[in-house]
């Protein structure tokens, strides 16, 4: 895995490169963390604001939630790194099956 480094005794580890990589990663994490806080505030505001109807608010905050999940998976749970092909394959397959189910239920049964 790409996130195991520094303490290894392997002489071929390029510490300079690793340090740069870590700094870069840290920056991404802070950026996405800030964005997530921001999105959470936005959704609270959307719910609190009188002018929006429920037909706007509910899909809107669900959309924000999905974005947050993606941030969480990619920047905090390292799905952007190498070696996560199998988990992402199964995650996306599961999302696909779930989406087809919801689509079918909302179009065939409840519409």
């Amino acid at each position, binding site marked *: 895995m790409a996130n195991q480094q520094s303490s290894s005794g392997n002489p071929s580890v390029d510490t300079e490169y690793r340090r740069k990589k870590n700094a870069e990663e840290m920056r991404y994490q802070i950026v996405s963390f800030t964005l997530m806080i921001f999105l959470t505030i936005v959704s609270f505001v959307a719910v609190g604001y009188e002018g929006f109807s429920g037909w706007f608010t509910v899909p809107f905050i669900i959309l924000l939630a999905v974005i947050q999940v993606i941030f969480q998976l990619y920047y905090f749970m390292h799905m952007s790194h190498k070696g996560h092909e199998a988990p992402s394959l199964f995650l996306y*397959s*599961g999302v*696909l099956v779930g989406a087809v189910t919801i689509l*079918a239920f909302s179009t065939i049964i409840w519409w």
Partner: protein
Amino acid sequence: MSTYAQKKGFGATLWDYLTTVDHKKIAILYLIAGGFFFLLGGLEALFIRIQLAVPNNDFVSAGFYNEILTMHGTTMIFLAAMPLVFAFMNAVMPLQIGARDVAFPFLNSLGFWLFFFGGVFLNLSWFLGGAPDAGWTSYASLSLTSTTHGIDFYALGLQISGMGTLIGGINFLVTIINMRAPGMTYMRMPMFTWATFVTSALILFAFPPLTVGLFLLIFDRMFGSNFFNVANGGNTIIWEHLFWIFGHPEVYILILPAFGIFSEIFAIFSRKRLFGYSSMVFATILIGFLGFMVWAHHMFTTGLGPIANAIFAVATMAIAVPTGIKIFNWLFTMWGGSIKFSTPMLWAVAFIPSFVAGGVTGVMLATAAADYQYHDTYFVVAHFHYVIVGGVVFALFAGAHLYWPKMFGTMLNETLGKITFWLFLIGFHLTFFIQHFLGLMGMPRRIFTFLPGQGLETGNLVSSIGAALMGVAVLVLLVNVVTTTVKNEKVGNDPWGDGRTLEWAIASPPPFYNFKQLPLVRGLDAYWLEKMEGKKGMTPAEPIGDIHMPNNSFIPFVLVLGLFIAAFGTMYHAETSWGLPVLILGMAVTLGAMFVRSIKDDHGFHIHKEDLIDDDKDKGVKA
């Protein structure tokens, strides 16, 4: 660790199997339990055919017929075909990828006991007030009005055994992803391993909808909710969708391992590499994917509307394409091969026309407009028996003969095997071919009797005679199993002489640690490759070293026993005073077992390499 080589008494053997976490022993447990339920389901099938042999028969009453019919379907799918498929996956897949066990041996054992207790619970309904009687699909409009506890047994029993299947599926996935031997890339995996992989993925995605559906049914029947109760604002169609979102992938969960077994057989007994290996892999994945897009074809007549019907009809027909790819690949594997018609090969060759017949009627049924005619007739019964018996059951018989030496170290008798094959093949076509025409003449499914003078007598009688032949065939197989076990003539590691994959490179049955040294895999059909270069065995990929093994555990049994007890409490809690305490007691046992498992460190043990080297001396005597 030399104690394992000693002869053990009955009690010790029983305890060994109750606590085992070894994938090979769990495979044997699955085989025995699945085989038992297969006989039970077969007996129910014979009762159905006796009842329908002549018009106006009163062998069983209408209500009892409903119970037999429901239990035949439920038993055969959930308690016979699934565990038998799991038996072969457990026995063979870890050997094929060169692993010492599955990724989570404890969970493997837990999965088996969940399945077993679920099955026992379901069948106890016969003695406790009546079996489920709403068909294996248990449509909510019927199942909510059923007055006995039968449906409760169905929902709770399948919930328990379904958990076991889900656990097993996840276990196989992790095993195949993480535990392949050095050199075993994805595209060097044997076809049966690929089938196991895709099947396990299907299990992972298909069983949660069933779990949800069964929970809603349990809540509706036992806890006063109204998910499916139309009178109180529920919707009965939700059950049908949830059931078939699970139910359609379920039939691919059964047939893909069957395809895998046949792929192995065609290659072994044609003494040729499997034709079009990569297209076979592609077709398997595509079938798995499309399997999730077609469930509503079971519901064409519920009024989905023309658009939904058209979409699902086209998606269903599309599945014929990857299946066709597979059929042609098998034919081309045999083409020009040096074919040996052993018992497994006979089943494999007979499978092709039988399964294609079932596939063709499948495309007919997929035509939504025509399905309004076929729906709920014996035509449908004929179709799904052609694919499930002609595909899955043939594969199970073939696999039993093929892998018997690997599982038990003895060869099933070939002559008796061929007698079984011919009796079963003839019986099968006698029983089900004519049911197409009975269906087209208008005989509905699930009726308990029919009137004389409507042209249905001959067809039904022929069908019943065929069923009797299949029964005799199974009896011959049982005789074969018993005589083979009594004779106990041990065979070597490659008894068919043409084994291609890793499982044939080690002793039959393999030692409990499987591979002393993990093998180096240099290509597809790894063992065949080495044999063709004049080598006797695999090149090891590692020096001999200590092997880390898991300890046996009795916890899975206790954990599941708790759920089994809790299920009784759940069922009777509304009408008896002891129901709720029993429910709590059962859950306490389960949670206690989980607690013990969590806090007790169990690091397993090591087989030291000195013992491994000693083992060479008595090789062949005791594995």
